[in-house]
């Protein structure tokens, strides 16, 4: 049953990616002007322009162009860097691990805290803890990652000098030290987000009939909350974490700029300022693929945890 669900889910993901790629193509074409000019910008050499014209098959009918576009993508060909002439795929793949590391670090510290905060608040509704944590979680959601990044840079790097301001560092410990502030900045609003969803979910579950059944059986409150309620309440959060990768990816772009870290965000911004558009498009497509994969995996994990999801849908 789970296998069937997984196949179906991957099918959906593939279709989504396919449509996304098509939308990108349409978007490029909707912009008035010569696509080669738009994609390569004014600085490209004539040879490159000729090469791209050939690669995009611009002399061919539109539908055929689209097919060639798909063909290139399927071969992992996202075009070439306007300046160096290196394949975009390679350049993006070089930068991707930096971003992934940052996202992973942010998830690692913020998700558990968010879940516990939300669950704890829900288990004690209307107490001081609940109220305070509700305000805090709204508060931290309210702070956009790049604002937190700037403020923490100002406070912890420039003023207190606790953490390095720029770069990704060398060697494990140094890299870790460089990760602290950006991961903090990205994760902070994410904590509030998770906590709020967890709290809402947990409150719903704590009011459910099956929790009353357990109470009527004489089960103590602690196992009710920590085992039976949490196990059900965490399900929507799992799905949200998948969606959240897209959110974190967006925040990572800013964190990479603020802390001058390498990564896919920095790559894109630099490419936009130098009008190196193949890189921009390649990176956007790659991050979309990453996002779609993340939501798919989250749904699969959800299905593993929830017998109903496996059977239904």
């Amino acid at each position, binding site marked *: 049953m789970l296998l069937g669900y997984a196949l179906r889910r991957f099918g959906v993901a593939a279709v989504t990616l396919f449509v996304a790629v098509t939308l990108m193509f349409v978007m490029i074409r909707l912009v008035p002007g010569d696509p080669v000019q738009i994609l390569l910008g004014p600085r490209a050499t004539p040879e490159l322009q000729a090469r791209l014209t050939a690669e995009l098959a611009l002399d061919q009918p539109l539908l055929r162009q689209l097919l060639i576009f798909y063909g290139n993508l399927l071969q992992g060909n996202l075009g070439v860097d306007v300046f160096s002439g290196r394949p975009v795929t390679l350049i993006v793949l070089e930068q991707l691990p930096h971003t992934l590391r940052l996202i992973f670090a942010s998830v690692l510290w913020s998700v558990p805290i968010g879940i516990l905060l939300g669950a704890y608040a829900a288990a004690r509704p209307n107490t001081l803890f609940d109220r305070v944590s509700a305000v805090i979680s709204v508060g931290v959601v309210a702070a956009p990652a790049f604002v937190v990044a700037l403020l923490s840079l100002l406070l912890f790097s420039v003023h207190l000098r606790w953490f390095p301001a720029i770069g990704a560092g060398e060697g494990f410990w140094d890299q870790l030290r460089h990760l602290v502030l950006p991961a903090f900045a990205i994760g902070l609003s994410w904590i509030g987000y998770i906590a709020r969803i967890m709290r809402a979910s947990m409150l719903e579950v704590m009011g459910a009939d*099956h929790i009353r*059944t357990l109470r009527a059986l004489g089960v103590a409150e602690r196992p009710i909350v920590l085992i039976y309620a949490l*196990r059900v309440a965490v399900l929507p959060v799992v799905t949200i974490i998948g969606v959240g990768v897209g959110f974190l990816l967006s925040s990572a772009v800013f964190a990479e700029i603020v802390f001058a870290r390498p990564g896919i965000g920095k790559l894109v911004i630099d490419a936009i300022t130098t009008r190196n558009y193949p890189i921009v498009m390649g990176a956007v497509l790659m991050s979309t693929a990453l996002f779609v994969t993340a939501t798919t995996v989250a749904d699969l994990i959800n299905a593993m945890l929830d017998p109903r999801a496996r059977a239904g849908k």
Partner: protein
Amino acid sequence: MLDVTRSSPPIASIRGLQVAFCTEDGPVLGVKDVSFDIHPGETLCVVGESGSGKSVSSMSLMRLIDYSGGIIQKGELLFDTGAAAPVDLAQADQALMRQIRGNAISMIFQEPMTALNPVFTIGHQLTIGLKLHKGLNSQDARARALELLQQVRIPEPDRRMTQYPHEMSGGMRQRVVIAMALACEPKLLIADEPTTALDVTVQAEILSLINQLKAETGTAVLFITHDMGVVAQIADRVVVMYRGDKIEEGPVEAIFDAPQQAYTRALLAAVPRLGEMQGTTLPEPMKLVGEAQSTSAPITGTDDVLLKVENLKVRFAVKGGLLRRHVANVHAVEDVSFTINKGQTLSLVGESGCGKSTAGRAIMRLLHPQSGQVILDGQDMMALSKRQLRAARRDVQMIFQDPFASLNPQIQLAEQVAEPLRNFGNRRDPAIMDRVATLFDRVGLPRAFMRRYPHELSGGQRQGVAIARALAPAPKLIVADEAVSALDVSVQAQVLNLMMELQADLGVSFLFISHDMAVVERVSHQVGVMYLGRIVELGPRAAVFENPHHPYTRALMQAVPIADPRKRHLIDSLAFRPIPSPIKPVGHTAEPSQYQQVGPDHWLLTNNHYDAADASQTN
């Protein structure tokens, strides 16, 4: 079953209980001053309508009330734990309560679909209590759980242990919940409306099961219900509650034969009893206590055909697989034919999923039938274009089950009643509001309600508005889909009488869709019994009720709890009856319904797809 050893001390004794709930508008009393005893081995029924506080005393005894915002303000909850003196549970701390809950006192609830945790197996949930209270290890607990599943007559207990709740039907889940409650052999079993959410045949099974388990284990049962029929079937003693007070208490025969209090008398008068129309052929309004009886004459109607339905079929596509293809069909309504005469009522009766509501909506073309003919007063409803259909709908109106959902929360009541008038007439006609006012008078609602919003009315009042709306365009036929099922019994009686009165006065016909045999007996001229999408028996009400031919009709009649303690007929077969699936693969051709005439206008389905013996097999 009936003799209660009064000499033995009560197992639980509720003394002067007062419980308040915290709400946004300050504390509200749930029960004011309630006292009663429960003796070992007896079944005590606490009966009352919504808002009577009937659940509050049991929730207090379990101290589960603490979790739903209730505070025990006064009173004692004495419980005999076996120690020298009874313990006052009102003063007990939660640690002590945890030892008692699920062990000495256990509880079953109303909604079996949500009472079990969706992500743990049945086996796991069954063993929780055993491990907790009896200290059993996993292996012993499992063995005992299997035994329990057998005790509640669940087929294939081994396989059930590894299943999840969503893989089981409601009746099966309720059996699991009962097994969980019985796991530690409690002295007192509290059952809070345990059969309200179930179909009547499943209800009969569960009631018999509870009764039999009581006899086997000797546990006392505190049974809470709103249904006087259920009370009559299983109670030894009865406590009647009304608005937080105990109105009356006594042995079940005394309560039914010689009720002392006016409220109890009114309540009992409002309960339709299966069989009480015997000897009559026509429906007539109920005689209620304290109501000015205007028309109590039988309603004759006419013999002119108003609606003729022939070979109606409705199927819903089931989609599945990788590409969400059309893989199967739900045969919701399968070759159904009937006619309704002008000024008369035909009832479609059956259990959930039998297709009765679908049939009602299909003849109004609120959903699209596969095939079939619907002729209303000479007009072919199926042949109408969209525009013509809209105009034709003034002749057929509808009343729904849930009075909360059938009115738009955002629109003033007068406007909602005026809606059909505006659609079928001149939108700006100034006379519309006068007509609405007369309609409000007609259904007995004060004109002041016209400017109100739905949330400001009670359920019965809302149903009145829904009826007014249905009456507005002066329809020839009203489809009443479980129109009184969600109402308290006294309100139900008033609404039923109103409907019959309207029929007598206006000559309107009803297609009355219901699961309640007793109500159907009261209001119908003709009855069609539905099972798995087909009408299995169709005929005049008196013939179908007094001389049922189809085994399913008989099973249904037998399952109805009659509100008379001298007519106890708890069924003895406790085996689980699975209902066959109406889902058939694409391309499945269903055989046409074939009928045999067994009396004047009395028809019996001969296609053999229901077999009482077969149905008792396991799936």
